[in-house]
């Protein structure tokens, strides 16, 4: 088979897949551990649960050397600017795991100082539920993130802005609701 018979894009796609596969199996976590979830994160990284089986054992405490941020624990309003600055300091491509009930939703700490979910202020790729989650759950989250990296590819923010296609229902329009009410139409069932 002559080389000229292969379409141009085949070679590129294969290279992307290879890059995605290597990146997915060599994640460098940045532990942002603020509470008891951090203890489970340490247990996950150490010998018994052995995160190195999944190629993600090299925890670096400098955001410049990481591509996966694991937010483990509650984040208060005094800590949030720190979290955002660390996220911005990480080089692209990068991912974020929100680990535990507090990082995902604020958990039981529905008080004046605790942020109700870090996904309000930084992009989050994977949510790990639990209070705190067992190491197996975190490993399941990392495996799911590896699948996501392989499927969606490694891209930076600028490429993401170009690639993004609006998904789901259209954004809520308050004027439309008023029009429907005034026109006495039947409202669709909303979740």
């Amino acid at each position, binding site marked *: 088979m002559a080389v000229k018979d292969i379409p141009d894009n085949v070679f590129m796609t294969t290279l992307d897949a290879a890059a995605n596969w290597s990146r997915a199996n060599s994640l460098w976590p940045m532990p942002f551990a603020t509470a008891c979830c951090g203890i489970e994160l340490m247990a996950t990284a150490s010998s018994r649960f052995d995160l190195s089986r999944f190629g993600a054992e090299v925890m670096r405490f400098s955001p410049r050397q990481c591509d996966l941020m694991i937010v483990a624990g509650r984040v208060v*309003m*005094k800590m949030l600017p720190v979290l955002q600055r660390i996220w*911005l300091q990480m080089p692209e491509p990068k991912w974020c795991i929100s680990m535990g009930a507090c990082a995902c939703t604020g958990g039981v700490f529905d*008080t*004046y100082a605790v942020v109700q979910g870090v996904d309000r*202020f930084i992009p989050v790729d994977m949510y790990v539920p639990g209070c705190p989650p067992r190491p197996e759950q975190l490993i399941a989250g990392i495996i799911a993130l590896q699948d996501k990296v392989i499927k969606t590819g490694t891209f930076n923010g600028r490429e993401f802005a170009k690639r*993004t296609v609006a998904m789901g229902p259209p954004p809520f329009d308050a004027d439309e609701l008023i029009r429907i009410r005034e026109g006495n139409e039947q409202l669709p069932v909303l979740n």
Partner: protein
Amino acid sequence: MSHQELLQTRFPAAGLVFSDFRDNHRVHVPKERLVEVLTCLKTDGGFDMLVDITAVDYLEYEDTDDRFGVVYVLLNTSTGERTIVKTFVNDPDPTLPSMYPLWKSADWTEREVYDMFGIKFEGHPDLRRILMPDEFTAFPLRKDYPLKGRGERHNFPVITRSES
């Protein structure tokens, strides 16, 4: 001589109210006599350690006339004796004299009471917020402040994927 006898002989007409529960000895002091009573407890009563300063908001509390109660927990490190001194301050502009000249531990504890309740301490060398961020304007442990805040916790810029 226990500290209660000492205070009774020193301040017979100061309006001190003593109460006991098991080994918990308390004395209520009018705001005007607070400095004298605490100075006497330190110099003559031997209470050389100020363990903690905290406050209580009695807003809408039954059978109370005063808004805030401020609590001083003292310890005599040579005898192990403890006492709790309580005084009351009111709106507007609740103010107390600072205990920093007597005990250096009053520095951060008074800052904490100021941060949470908005009670000012006159004579404090550096009275500013210690727990909440500097741009926070409310006093969160007051009873008229909502438990979930007034939206300060979500008043931050949002970083999206395409910006990061």
